[in-house]
Every structure is written in C-alpha cells, then in structure tokens.
C-alpha cells in the first residue's frame, strides 16, 4: 500500500472523462429533462384553464399566442415531451419488475421510447387536425 511505484502502475479508474455516449445514457437524461420541462409546462395548462374560467377575452389572448407558429411548435413539443416522458416512465416501471435491464434489451427499450414518442406525438396531432376538419 505504501509503495508508490506499484500504485502508479495501476490503471486510473474510473475514466470519468473517457466514455462513449450511448443511446441509453441520452435517454436516461432525456427522461429527467422532459420531466423538468413538463413540470414548468404545467404553467401553460394553468394559464389556459384559468383563462377559460375567467373571460373570453383572456381566453382569446392565449388562443392567439398558441395559434402562432411558435405557439404551435411549443404545443407540439410539449406533447412530444409528454409522450417521451410517459414511455420513458413505462421503461422505468418495466425495470422495476427486474426486466429489460440487459444491454440489448435496454438499448431496444431506449430506441422504442424515442421512436414511439415521435410516432405518438405526430399521430395524436394528425388525428386532432383530422377530427377538427
């Protein structure tokens, strides 16, 4: 233990700055980021509901804001984040049962979360637009 020459022979571990970014890492972070986004996004929901509950004038304002290009993009992003977080959450629930933790399955689940969230977000808005005519 006190012999410093043997210590220098040892590999320095863990290599905190040397790693390959994997999909599973990114998706793990994405679950937290979407969670925080949705957290503050509840303010939009509250604004919408309170505006609807107070006056048509207040409601027209938020409608105008979210009727713009940027507003629609924000709404779409919000639903995407929601589906992303939901599927990521389902992934957590699967892990809680002890399943889906292997390298192959966890990668597959991460991919399914990413693809599934995009598909669901596009689908729900497409259906919404069609229903509205």
């Amino acid at each position, binding site marked *: 233990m006190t012999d410093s020459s043997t210590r220098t022979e040892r590999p320095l571990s863990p290599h905190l700055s040397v790693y390959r970014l994997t999909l599973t890492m990114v998706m793990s972070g994405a679950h937290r980021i979407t969670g925080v986004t949705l957290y503050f996004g509840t303010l939009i929901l*509250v604004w919408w509901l309170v505006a609807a*509950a107070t006056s*048509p004038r207040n409601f027209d304002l938020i409608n105008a804001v979210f009727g713009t290009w940027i507003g629609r993009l924000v709404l779409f992003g919000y639903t995407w984040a929601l*589906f992303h977080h939901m599927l990521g959450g389902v992934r957590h629930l699967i892990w809680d049962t002890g399943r889906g933790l292997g390298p192959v399955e966890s990668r597959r689940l991460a991919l399914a979360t990413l693809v599934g969230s995009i598909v669901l977000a596009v689908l729900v808005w497409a259906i919404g637009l069609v229903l509205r005519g």
Partner: protein
Amino acid sequence: MRNSFHHIRGLGSARSGTEHFWMQRLTAVANIPLVMAFVVILVTLAGRSHAAVIATLGQPMVAILMIATVLSVVVHIRLGMQVIIEDYVNSEARKIALLMANTFFSIAVGLAAVFAVLRISFGL
C-alpha cells in the same frame, strides 16, 4: 436480498423513502391513462373558441378527468422535482428553500387548475 412487498413498504431508515418511491410509481401508473385522455382532449380543443372549450370542459366526465389528472400530476411532479433537488443541491439551506418552493409551486398549480375546472363546471 429479497423482502416481501408488504414488509418493505413504509420501512427503511428514513421511514419515508419507500413511500416516496411508491407514490412516484403509483402516480406514474395513474398518469398513463389520465395523460393520454388529457392529450386527446387538449388536441381536440386547441385553437377552438372560448364557448366550445367551456362547453367541453364543463361536462362532468371531462371535468372529473381533468381534476384527476391534475391531482395525480401534481403529486407526481412534487415528488419528481424533490429527487432532482436532492440530487443536485448540496447546500442544506438552499435545499430546504427549494424543497419548500417545490411544494408551494405544486400546490399552487393544483389549486389554480382545480379551481378553474370547477368554476367552468359550475358556471361562469
């Protein structure tokens, strides 16, 4: 190491960690159908007139669904943000302040949303 579920619930050194975990999972499961129904409502109402939105949100089933969603989400986000604060904030004073702010935020969001839905339901 394995313990039966009823044995684990409510125990642990802090006597609260499992409860936190359990409520996070419970609200996560509840959120799945609630949020999906909510998104469908949101998408069909986006851009509609005030009168149309009021008429839909005022329906008992829609109002109950909205309130259930808000309650489940508010409990869920308070617990979720608590974990994030505990993960990243090291100063004890800042941590306590942020945990308080988190609770206030969650309650404020819940109250405002529920109040709005009830007001719409019971007539403006």
